[in-house]
């Protein structure tokens, strides 16, 4: 069976993992265009290259990041998300008319 190295749990069968989509930079939802938001939410690159993706190790509920080549399906690197995300993302609702 194909194996993947979980940064928390070590080498495990690929059947223990769930794919979570590409890691993409989120545009500011309050100021970006509809096209830019649709691009972020619905579209993926789908080219032949090395992609950076979210993966879940389901038995431990642990999300991490993997770099994978979409042509060979080789997993090149896996690491904890704190490498890319080191502070909490806060959301603020846009000010609308009628609100104080």
């Amino acid at each position, binding site marked *: *069976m194909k194996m993947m190295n979980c940064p*928390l749990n070590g080498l*495990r*069968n690929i*059947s*223990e993992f769930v794919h979570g989509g590409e890691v993409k930079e989120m545009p500011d939802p309050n100021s970006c265009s509809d096209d830019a938001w649709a691009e972020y939410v619905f579209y993926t690159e789908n080219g032949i290259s090395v992609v950076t993706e979210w993966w879940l*190790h*389901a*038995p431990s509920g*642990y999300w991490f990041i993997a770099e994978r080549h979409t042509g060979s399906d080789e997993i090149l690197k896996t690491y904890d998300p704190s490498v890319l995300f080191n502070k909490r993302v806060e959301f603020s609702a846009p000010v609308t008319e009628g609100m104080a």
Partner: protein
Amino acid sequence: MSDVMKSTITPETYLVRSPLYRLHKAAGAHFDECSSAAQVTSYGDRSAVSTALIDLSVNHRFGVRGPNALAALAAAGLSVPDKPNQCVNSSNGETVLRLSNTECWVLGAMESGACSADSSAFADCYPVYCQDSHACLLLSGEHLPDIMAKLCGVDLSEHAFPKGAIAQTSVARINAIISHLPDREGTHFVILCDSAAAEYLWGCLLDAMGEFGGQAAGLDYLF
């Protein structure tokens, strides 16, 4: 507790029940009160059994998660493992399982089934309600790595999975947390699985144990 009282204890006497209580009743198990619930004490005479499967689901357990979790548990007097996927016993008999960098579960002392606190006592942490979400099974005795090798892809032999180690992996195709209990004579694996899948895993483990002479048992097997 008197023998007369013991004979009247059934799981339905209590609001807290194991997800496996119907199986235990149907198999003719004997119960006694433990942690305000009915705990299986025996399945008849199992003194000669080399490997036993014991349901500890009614024992108390709780979890805490978040950046303050480890420090909060330590401040409450519990021992906390240095690294993820390790477990240690605290002086009061509770076992602390460190499941990630910022999450720990605490299992109540095996004999009394009680925890000294619960997650509501840790205000700065996110609570993890693993009491009802998970079932807790204890596999105890001989041939445990061989039994688990039939169900699980991770090597659980003594050299790869020593006392105090934890493996979070797939067992019989369902997610489970396997802890090799430290500081106890003999080999004991605590297996935590989704409570909705407990009957399935109970059957799988008994089936895997069969060729090694393993059987279901109660707390009397341990004490």
